[in-house]
């Protein structure tokens, strides 16, 4: 088809100077054919672009329709109820929402400072020849499917935590008045803390690579000026690089948060799937995505299925807000770099 089109174009060029009614008519016919194809292609691409919009509206619409029975039955009470009883068909989202928020918070608390530190190392300290390999290694870490983190977390990380970190936390921080309830209970290995730590490892590459990209976007003149007046490397990062890139860094952090909130497989393996809100970080819990992954195919009855879809809708709304904010911030910094 492509070669046929090419021949036609060549013909047109050759016959351009020819005068005669037959040739002219043929030429205008060929031209109008081209014009038709041209506008067809244009409309096709436009339709595909609109399709992307429809995709997102389709996601939202289908989730709303699917969750309608549960929405009608439970209303806003769904958000604050801790019950999760498939037998009496009484459902509430408090425990999954709580688990999602707590695991993501733990993940961000660890991943953000570490990620920023690595980004600082890569842009300021690291010898030039080592930058690319380390950068690539970090990005490969980002490409590993989440199920790998999950299986590793279940078989290696959770037993390790059960024997080392968790008993240690229970015997030290668990004795401190005030925060003792956060470390109460037996060390199961699996639980909210384990899930948060796995998420931290998962989110780390995202935070690192975005921070590195925005750090690299700082105009060298600014840094050179700061070094020129005698700043140490840390002072350059703290007082020049970070203020300049603040918006971009926050954008990257939000993007990582979006990942952490919606992550399914890495969490499902190690969270323990317990529908209760527990102050203890080492107790089993659940997240929105883990609940859906664990229970959806086994859910019987309209209300059960519909409640799970409603959970999905809540997750989507939360991540939508976080991601929109992240994109807005990153767009701002992109515009500034131009």
């Amino acid at each position, binding site marked *: 088809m*492509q070669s046929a*089109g090419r021949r036609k*174009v060549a013909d*047109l*060029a050759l016959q351009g100077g020819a005068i005669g009614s037959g040739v002219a008519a043929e030429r205008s016919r060929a031209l109008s054919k*081209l*014009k038709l194809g*041209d506008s067809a*292609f*244009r409309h096709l*691409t436009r339709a*595909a*672009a609109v*399709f*992307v*919009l429809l*995709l997102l509206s*389709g*996601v939202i619409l*289908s*989730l709303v329709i*699917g969750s309608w029975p549960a929405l009608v039955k439970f209303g806003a009470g769904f958000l604050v109820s801790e019950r999760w009883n498939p037998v009496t068909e009484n459902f509430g989202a408090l425990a999954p929402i709580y688990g999602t928020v707590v695991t993501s918070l733990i993940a961000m608390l660890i991943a953000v*400072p570490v990620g920023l*530190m690595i980004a*600082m*190392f*890569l842009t300021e300290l690291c010898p030039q020849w080592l930058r690319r390999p*380390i950068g690539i*290694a*970090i990005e*490969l*870490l980002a*490409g*590993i*499917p*989440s*199920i*790998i983190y*999950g*299986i*590793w977390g279940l*078989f290696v990380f959770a037993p390790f935590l059960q024997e080392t970190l968790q008993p240690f936390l229970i015997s030290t921080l668990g004795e401190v008045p005030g925060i003792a309830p956060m470390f109460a209970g037996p060390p199961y290995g699996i639980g909210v803390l384990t899930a948060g730590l796995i998420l931290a*490892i998962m989110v*780390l590459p995202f935070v690192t690579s975005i921070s590195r990209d925005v750090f690299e976007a700082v105009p060298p003149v600014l840094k050179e000026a700061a070094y020129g007046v005698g700043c*140490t*490397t840390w002072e350059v990062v703290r007082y020049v690089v970070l203020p300049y890139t603040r918006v971009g860094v926050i954008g990257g952090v939000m993007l990582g948060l979006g990942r952490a909130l*919606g992550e*399914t*497989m890495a969490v499902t393996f190690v969270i323990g799937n317990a529908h209760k809100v527990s102050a203890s970080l080492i107790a089993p819990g659940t997240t929105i*995505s883990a609940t859906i992954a664990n229970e*959806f*195919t086994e859910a019987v009855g309209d209300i059960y299925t519909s409640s799970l879809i409603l959970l*999905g809708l809540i*997750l*989507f709304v939360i*991540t*939508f807000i976080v*991601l*929109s904010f992240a*994109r807005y911030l990153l767009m701002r910094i992109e515009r500034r770099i131009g």
Partner: protein
Amino acid sequence: MSRATDKIYAGRRRTNAVTMGLSLAATAFGLGWLVLILGTLLWEGFSGLSLRVFTEMTPPPGASGGLLNAIMGSLVLTFLAVLIGTPIGILAGTYMAEYGRHSQLSSIVRFINDILLSAPSIVIGLFIYEVMVYPMGHFSGWAGAVALSVIVIPVVVRTTEDMLMLVPDTLREAAASIGLPRSLMIIRIAYRAAKAGMITGVLLAVARISGETAPLLFTALNNQFWSTNMNAPVASLPVVIFQFALSPYKDWQALAWTGALIITLAVLALSITARALSSSRKQS
């Protein structure tokens, strides 16, 4: 110099040394996880790797077997997802870079596409369940492929747009000046110039979906047997890993590790190829 300034200098040097030490430690920490995870994976995965993995079906509990149906299922699902998602993604990216570079529609699509790019994949599974599995009344391979294609589309849209933006306008002007219609200019000139980058995008999309589990859980479901019927549930590597890893049977757990190794090697190979492709383009 006075002793006071000496003290300040010493303090600043100390702070600097401490923070630089911390950043070095953080890097070692971050890379340590990569080594640890890959190390465990290689160790556990290779000890279960044998020819049987590629020639036998997934076994019932307690028996030995392989992962053939899961590997085939994954390949077919990925292939179909790319087949569905790539044309849509390329066309949409083309619109944004070539026709509506500054139009309102493009900036909205760009924003929405970025949201889709990082949307939780389990939600996409729920979406396809609602629009395909529920109306059809049964789980199917088609539903799984479509769910994966929803993940492919935003990746391809993004890379296509980015790569077409890099094509110099002088090429387009040269094409226009010899009277080439715009559509032919895009297909013959712009696509050709951006080819390596666009292939990279597709490879990245394949890498992304080949490990996706969540959207398949309630679309393609799982199948213990060999099945080429895309209207029925189809096994896939990630779902089999999920099921086998959480089982109490040692044989199943060993197969899960082996499956995880196969997926990781495939994903790493894909991302490295994609990287090599895009860096060779930069140099030329």
